[in-house]
């Protein structure tokens, strides 16, 4: 294999993806990748600032450096877990489902070379946690600890080794697993693992962090004590090894950590190469074999009354008349019914997406429980907060997926004789119906559990329904503006930039609704009479703007079709 040629080709592909190449490509080039890069830079800057502030606070005179190293180790380990749980799926999809794999397989290349090329391709797709978390944390730690020049120079190598450990081991495990399960299911299975891991992390945070925060004593001291207690364990993790290299550990520990980090990375990559040499060819072949999957029901409809299925006669009749008359009154299917039917089928048949939505619905509902250990809440307030969190979350979980879920089918928005506003309204109805059903189930369960009275019910609905309407329209806009029709990970149907924008919108909405609810609860001030009406008015106004933006995007063909 001509490694230099391969590297040059990949570098060109990356450059062309970012900046376009040739007149036609440049004219069609979406600006998404550059926006995503800008947003990644902003997110990395925020993490850097926050981590630097934490380290500065922790580094009071007399504080042991091991505490700072433990903080850095924790951040690096979190980034590694992020790669393993959330980006491994992208890496494995790159490895076994990319379009150029048939070309590579046909070339005289051994599986190990194919693995090397595809791991290289996976790098930009599986490096977000390192770029957004690990790199800013490393820089902040090196600044705080006034690391020597050698540490700065070693940082890129350390990052590469850190990246290789989860990706190599994860790829080896995934390939070994894929050799035993149907390969076409890999995307869905890894997506499900990612969703479950996300749920586990969320629930852990939900029940652990508030309790830590509610304990007696100064918060920073408690963090310091926790880090000091965890430091020995963290020192034996990849993050701990990297932290020792960059965090001014004693010379002996630096040598041991460097050896451990290099050995772990080498072992991980060697394991992936070994498994690839045994299983990659078989896995690739299996991945290209279609899996027969029957539909839920055959959609063959009965022909109109009085007709038969002798098609030659029917065909002749059709050939002689452009518009054969049906034998029963012409009934047309309204657009929003057709879209809802289609979306229901697409959602229900993509069980990873469906499972992801249901899991996320549960997690969003539980989110306000975070506050329980910190302050006592009245039941109606808690129910309202839980339903508001669910309503806001569903905008991202359901509505933002509406456009990307269509993939190439989205072209029908431009082809069919349907107004862009009608499309936007139909998408709103379809996503809103599914979200409303989930909110309805959650609302009924919580309301019964909390024994809400009729008046409290109405007040809750008056706040939650507008929040749901707004979150669905904002979700639709996010999907239309940042949807990735080539998505493989159900948690990443938006581009990276889109996910950051969606997260910011979720936080903004949640804050707004909670502030409004609290203001309504206090019920004072000269504009108190307006507060009950404000959610509805705000939702109508902002939703109209968002639906208009979606329609404009459809109208000018702004949604990318692969």
């Amino acid at each position, binding site marked *: 294999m001509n490694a230099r040629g391969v590297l040059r080709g990949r570098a060109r592909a990356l450059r062309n993806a970012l900046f376009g190449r040739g007149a036609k490509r440049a004219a069609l080039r979406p600006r998404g990748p550059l926006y995503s890069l800008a947003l990644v830079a902003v997110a990395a800057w925020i993490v850097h600032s926050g981590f630097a502030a934490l380290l500065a606070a922790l580094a009071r005179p007399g504080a042991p450096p091991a505490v700072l190293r433990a903080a850095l180790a924790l951040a690096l380990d979190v980034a590694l877990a992020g790669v393993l749980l959330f980006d491994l799926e992208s890496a494995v999809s790159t490895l076994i489902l990319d379009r150029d794999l048939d070309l590579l397989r046909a070339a005289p290349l051994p599986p190990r070379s194919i693995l090397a090329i595809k791991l290289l391709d996976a790098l930009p797709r599986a490096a977000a946690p390192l770029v957004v978390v690990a790199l800013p944390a490393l820089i902040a730690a090196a600044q705080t600890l006034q690391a020597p020049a050698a540490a700065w120079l070693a940082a890129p190598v350390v990052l590469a080794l850190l990246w290789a450990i989860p990706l190599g081991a994860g790829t080896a495990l995934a390939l070994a697993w894929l050799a035993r399960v149907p390969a076409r299911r890999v995307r869905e299975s890894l997506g499900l693992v990612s969703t479950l891991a996300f749920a586990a992390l969320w629930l852990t945070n939900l029940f652990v962090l508030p309790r830590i925060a509610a304990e007696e004593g100064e918060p920073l001291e408690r963090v310091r004590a926790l880090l000091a207690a965890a430091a020995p364990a963290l020192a034996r993790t990849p993050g701990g090894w990297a932290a020792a290299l960059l965090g001014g550990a004693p010379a002996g520990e630096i040598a041991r950590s460097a050896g451990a980090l290099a050995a772990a990375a080498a072992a991980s990559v060697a394991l992936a190469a070994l498994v690839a040499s045994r299983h990659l060819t078989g896995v690739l072949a299996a991945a290209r074999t279609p899996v027969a999957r029957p539909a839920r029901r055959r959609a063959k409809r009965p022909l109109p009354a009085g007709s038969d299925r002798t098609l030659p006669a029917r*065909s002749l009749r059709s050939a002689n008349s452009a518009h054969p008359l049906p034998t029963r009154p012409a009934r047309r299917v309204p657009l929003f019914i057709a879209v809802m039917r289609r979306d229901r089928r697409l959602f229900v048949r993509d069980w990873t997406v469906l499972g992801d939505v249901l899991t996320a619905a549960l997690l969003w509902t539980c989110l306000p429980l975070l506050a329980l250990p910190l302050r006592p809440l009245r039941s109606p307030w808690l129910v309202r907060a839980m339903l508001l969190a669910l309503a806001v979350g569903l905008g991202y979980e359901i509505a933002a997926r509406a456009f990307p879920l269509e993939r190439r089918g989205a072209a029908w928005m431009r082809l069919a004789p349907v107004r862009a506003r009608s499309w936007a309204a139909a998408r709103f109805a379809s996503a809103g119906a599914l979200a409303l059903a989930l909110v309805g189930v959650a609302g009924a369960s919580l309301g019964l559990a909390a024994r809400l009275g009729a008046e409290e019910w109405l007040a809750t609905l008056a706040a939650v329904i507008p929040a749901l309407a707004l979150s669905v329209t904002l979700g639709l806009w996010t999907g239309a503006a940042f949807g990735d029709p080539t998505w493989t990970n159900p948690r990443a149907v938006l581009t990276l930039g889109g996910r950051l924008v969606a997260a910011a919108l979720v936080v903004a909405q949640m804050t707004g609704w909670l502030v409004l609810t609290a203001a309504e609860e206090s019920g004072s001030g000269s504009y108190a009479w307006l507060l009950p009406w404000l959610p509805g008015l705000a939702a109508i106004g902002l939703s109209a703007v968002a639906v208009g933006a979606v329609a404009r995007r459809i109208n*000018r063909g702004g949604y990318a079709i692969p």
Partner: protein
Amino acid sequence: MESAPPLRIESLTHRYGDLLAVDDLSLEVGAGEIVGFLGPNGAGKTTTLRVCAGLLALEKGRVTIAGADLAATPLLARARLGLVPDEPFLYERLTPAEFLEFVAALYDVPESLAALRSSELIERFELVAAAGELIETCSRGMRQKVSIAAALLHDPPLALLDEPLTGLDPRAVRALKDLLRERAARGLGVLVSTHLLEVAERLCDRVVIIHRGKKRAAGTPAALLAGRAEATLEDVFLALTGDAEPAS
């Protein structure tokens, strides 16, 4: 409306940045006519079809679909055409029958008529066995058949087909040719882009050859051959498009 041809393109120009993809192109597809749209790779065929179908913006020129001006009445124009794209626009997790049901709703075809036409097209293209399977499990040829069926389901006055024979087996090719001829016999128009010159010669009433976005020749295959030294349409095509390939 009655006398308007299924397709009239006047002075169509389309650019991708600095690249001139279609240059002042004019052509017409008459009622009951099958017109072959020929040209080497990068000649501007797909761009022309995509502009006519509304997938790309109409920047300069005029396109009229069965009397409906694409710029002034885009919805009416879209309702009057069916497009078979070079790569099908399908929903992987619908069955062909469900997909056709959805497309029928988009084009406001009454349910009973949609069921009738779907059944007809499904049987005609031998999709009966696959009609209840998800599209993601279908072969390339099956997908192409579903795409063709979707484009013709609302029986539009104009059918635009971009390399429609890709992936089709000989029986499906025959079925498609018969269907297009039947449509032409009913006075409907067909513009078919293809690289298969023999197919164009046998199927099409007229051919239009474009190269680097400009029309190089138009007429019946016999008229194009008349008075020329070349013996076949292929020879004519090669002579007209013989200079170097564009860099796109």
